[in-house]
């Protein structure tokens, strides 16, 4: 009985270190939320107007350098930051990012409302950040 409980516990665990929102990747990873079917579009819609390696400091609307989400490498380098700024999970629903106002053009005045992810999208983001680091990558 004890062995069964232990086995269920081990099978039920995802990554060893919880994400900031304490979202856990299901085990085994169902790979239903990926960079190709979710992450790339999410970043392009909500993040790349400021978090892009093509933008100099003066056009980043306050976004720090080395937090660029043009590709999966850049995203995985700061995955926990992404989760704690915009993810939604058991421990928190973070709405720090995107901010309320965005420039219509890079480096321009904050002329438009930033598009905002839905709560469901934030939950998918958190799940993706919980699963993606442990997947095999070619880089």
């Amino acid at each position: 009985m004890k062995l069964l409980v232990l086995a269920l516990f081990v099978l039920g665990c995802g990554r060893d270190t919880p994400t900031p929102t304490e979202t856990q990747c299901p085990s085994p990873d169902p790979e239903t939320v990926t960079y190709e079917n979710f992450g790339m579009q999410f970043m392009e819609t909500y993040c790349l107007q400021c978090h892009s390696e093509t933008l100099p400091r003066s056009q980043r609307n306050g976004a720090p350098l080395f937090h660029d989400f043009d590709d999966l490498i850049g995203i995985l380098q700061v995955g926990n930051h992404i989760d704690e700024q915009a993810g939604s999970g058991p421990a928190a629903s973070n709405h720090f990012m995107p901010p309320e106002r965005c420039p219509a053009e890079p480096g321009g005045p904050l002329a438009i409302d930033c598009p905002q992810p839905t709560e469901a999208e934030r939950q998918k983001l958190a799940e993706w950040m919980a699963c993606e680091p442990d997947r095999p990558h070619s880089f």
Partner: protein
Amino acid sequence: MSSMLKLVAIIVMAPAVAMAEHHHHGMVTGEAEQGSSFAAGLSLVAAQFDTMEYGGEYQGLVPSLRWSHDRFAVMASLGVYRLQKNGLELYGAGDAMVHGQARLVGDGHVNAGLALAVSAPTGDNLQGLGMGHPMVMPAAYGHWGQGMVSVDGSVGYGRAIGGESHHAHGVWPLIEPMNMQEVTFAASGDVVLAKQLRAGGRVSGAMPIGDGISRVIGGVRVLWTEGRVDTAFEIQAGIAGDPFTLRGVLETALRF
């Protein structure tokens, strides 16, 4: 002559040194004061910074109130800032600071004491305006003066209270960066140039305990007194740790 010089030193040194030091967490060093005094001050600060992740500038207005009685002194300040970081301009308050100190030994030209500064997280931590935690900063200071030359020094400790969050963006906050736990130091020297004019230099900094970034700041300053108004101007350079590239501080205070 000696008495006149001492009188000038008392008038010029104590409040002016207090003002010039307020960016070192309100440390009031210098010639020992007698009696009670009250002062209201205003600092103008402007700086440029260039850290690993952020570049920009900030300007601030920092009003302060100071009261001293014999060996005790208390000061409070709260700054408001314009911050431009990586193309984003924003405005807001920094962290509020209250500082108290007591002279324990010595009088006149040589004295030493203890100080305690506490900051409240009134500044927006996410934007880089404040620490995000209350900070407690005890310190010990000493002053030595001889003729027209005086030297001051202090060593202290700073610790964030509550939570173990980390500063995820390197040097942080962008205004008055500090580590979550650190040892601080400062040393300064001044020389009297004229009856109401003093000039000097200072080195200050901190070393983290645990994770963090060491920083060293150097500065040169001039201080002058006109009646009950004390004014100081200091140019500072970030020598190590990217606290800022260059910063100018203009301070003035009215003594009552």
